[in-house]
């Protein structure tokens, strides 16, 4: 695979995410196991990072730590110059609301709300008035070619449409970092490609940093950077240690 295939990150961009020696233990007593063994990485603005690895490699756990949803056992997560471990629960919620966007495998839209309403919930949480939030939410839907579907409830949308609405929700508050957990895992190849293109565009055109957990080798290669985990350790990082990756067994 040639490096030139990858969309290049904007030059001179600043570091947005920095993880230092992250460790995460789960369970207690005899069931206690270490999921992440001291992971360090940094991600710049505009980078599209694919996080790969087999089941149980710790990639989802790393994603939740980078998204301030989970708390590390040891180590530090710096997001945009703020150490997440120093924030209390409410401050982390506010940080997620204002600076982060999440996309999950199973779309996870709230079933009682229309597409537009799902998108404006994070906007309204910031204190924006409903009508203003709706204007903005509608813009976001239009950017993703979803404006026709704004009044539909999730039950009336296809899987691909639902996933695109959930991406709209993730970007509604103009986040610096978008975290996606197997966003294409539940979609057919056409819709998966569409979702990948959206992420690609968000990174290259809008300068967002994206961390996407994926099982799809093709998408992983086409991201601007691929980080591979195994047993809670980074075994390959195409940005920082491309030469190491050659030496590791696949």
């Amino acid at each position, binding site marked *: 695979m040639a490096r030139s295939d990858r969309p290049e990150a904007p030059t001179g961009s600043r570091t947005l995410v920095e993880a230092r020696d992250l460790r995460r233990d789960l369970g207690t007593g005899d069931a206690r196991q270490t999921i992440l063994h001291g992971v360090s990485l940094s991600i710049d603005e505009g980078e599209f990072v694919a996080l790969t690895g087999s089941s149980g490699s710790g990639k989802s756990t790393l994603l939740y730590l980078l998204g301030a949803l989970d708390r590390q056992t040891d180590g530090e997560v710096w997001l945009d110059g703020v150490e997440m471990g120093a924030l209390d629960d409410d401050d982390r919620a506010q940080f997620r*609301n204002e600076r982060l966007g999440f996309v*999950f495998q199973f779309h*996870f839209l709230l079933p009682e709300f229309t597409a537009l309403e799902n998108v404006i*919930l994070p906007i309204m949480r910031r204190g924006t008035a409903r009508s203003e939030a709706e204007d903005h939410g509608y813009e976001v839907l239009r950017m993703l070619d979803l404006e026709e579907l704004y009044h539909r409830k999730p039950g009336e949308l296809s899987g691909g449409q639902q996933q695109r609405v959930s991406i709209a929700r993730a970007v509604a508050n103009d986040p610096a970092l978008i975290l996606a957990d197997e966003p294409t895992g539940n979609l057919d190849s056409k819709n998966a490609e569409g979702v990948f293109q959206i992420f690609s565009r968000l990174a290259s055109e809008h300068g967002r940093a994206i961390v996407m957990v994926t099982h799809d080798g093709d998408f992983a290669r086409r991201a601007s950077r691929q980080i591979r985990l195994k047993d809670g350790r980074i075994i390959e990082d195409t940005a920082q240690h491309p030469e190491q990756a050659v030496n590791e067994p696949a």
Partner: protein
Amino acid sequence: MKVALAPHRTTVFIALRQLWERKLLNGIAVGGVTLGVLVLIAMNGIVKGFEDKFTETILKISPHVILFDTELRPGEPFLQRYMGTLVAAHVAHESPSERQSRVKRPYEIVRALHSVPEVEAAAPSLAGMALLDFGGKTKSVDLRGIDVAAQDAVTPIHQYVKAGRLADLDTNSDGIVLGAGLAGDLGLHVGDTVHAASAGGKPRDLKVVAIFEVEVPPVDKTRGYTTLRTAQALLGRPDTIGRIEIRLHDSDSAFRVSDEVERLFGYDCESWKESNANFLAIFAMQDMVVSFVIGAILLVGGFGILAVQIMIVLQKQRDIAILRSVGLRRADILRIFLMQGVIIALVGGVVGDVLGKVALHFLALVPVKAEGLVKADTFLIHEEAAIYVTGVVFALVVGVTASLIPAIRGSRVEPVEVLRGQIG
């Protein structure tokens, strides 16, 4: 203010929408609360209605305060009066004197009572037991010797006269006015002459001049009125006033005025609340039982909310995880579920109020045959605005309490645990 309230718009929005989207389930929870409030209003209406009626009947024929002929502060012992403080000899048990007790200078007390601001009317009378004999039947009578006009101002007997005229007592020196129940038992009618006797006085024949019915069976079956002079002669207590009955402007002040009069005149006084303490105690007990039943039903309503909300919280783990990931705080989640419980309770309370009002309307039409303490043809209903407020307040307390546990549970959902479970 705007800044402080703005983020709550999201929680209000979510709470209301989710409620609206599961109408059936919430309807069941609302139904539980509605039932509780309905029972609260209906039971309270019936029980209080009966108690009100009882109090009202008691008050229409009973004086508010009775001053008895028992002196509270008997004079100091003879020796002490003359020799100063020290008393060397003390008689442990004085044999009861033959002299019967009486209210001394009763008319001065009555005059003085009329100048007490709370007092509406006061009447001196003499009460005693006598036997009535007619047609081979003998009945005891709770005989009251009264000053007709004065007594009627204290206990308006003339309102309840069914046959004859109360005023005829004044013109008929040997007249008697009887309760309908007593007259019926003896087979007496107005114009009949009945033989009366007592332990101390001279027996004499009395002419029935009127029959009254206050619809309080214990009174109707035992009470008889004669003039004061007739009663004094019949009971063998000439010139004696045994009690002064008092009517107040406000019956609720009876307790206080009773103490006041006692202090002023030195005679034992009793308010109507003390005279009817046994009934009022039964009412207190009844109120307690009713409160217990109402409480139990409201509790069941609370469990309805609890069950529905617990179920929703368990079902909505995923949605909670999503909301938390887009930046809602634990407190926001708590608020959403709490708000839903409160709204369910509020709707239940208001619907319960409306149905309760309708229920009271129809209960008042239900025929019942009651002849115990009071006579009634239908349920006696008490209705007051406060009970509707109480209904809603109780519903709210139940709602908040019942939704607290699910709400706390919901707020404790860890988004990562839910997401991790989803991905497997």
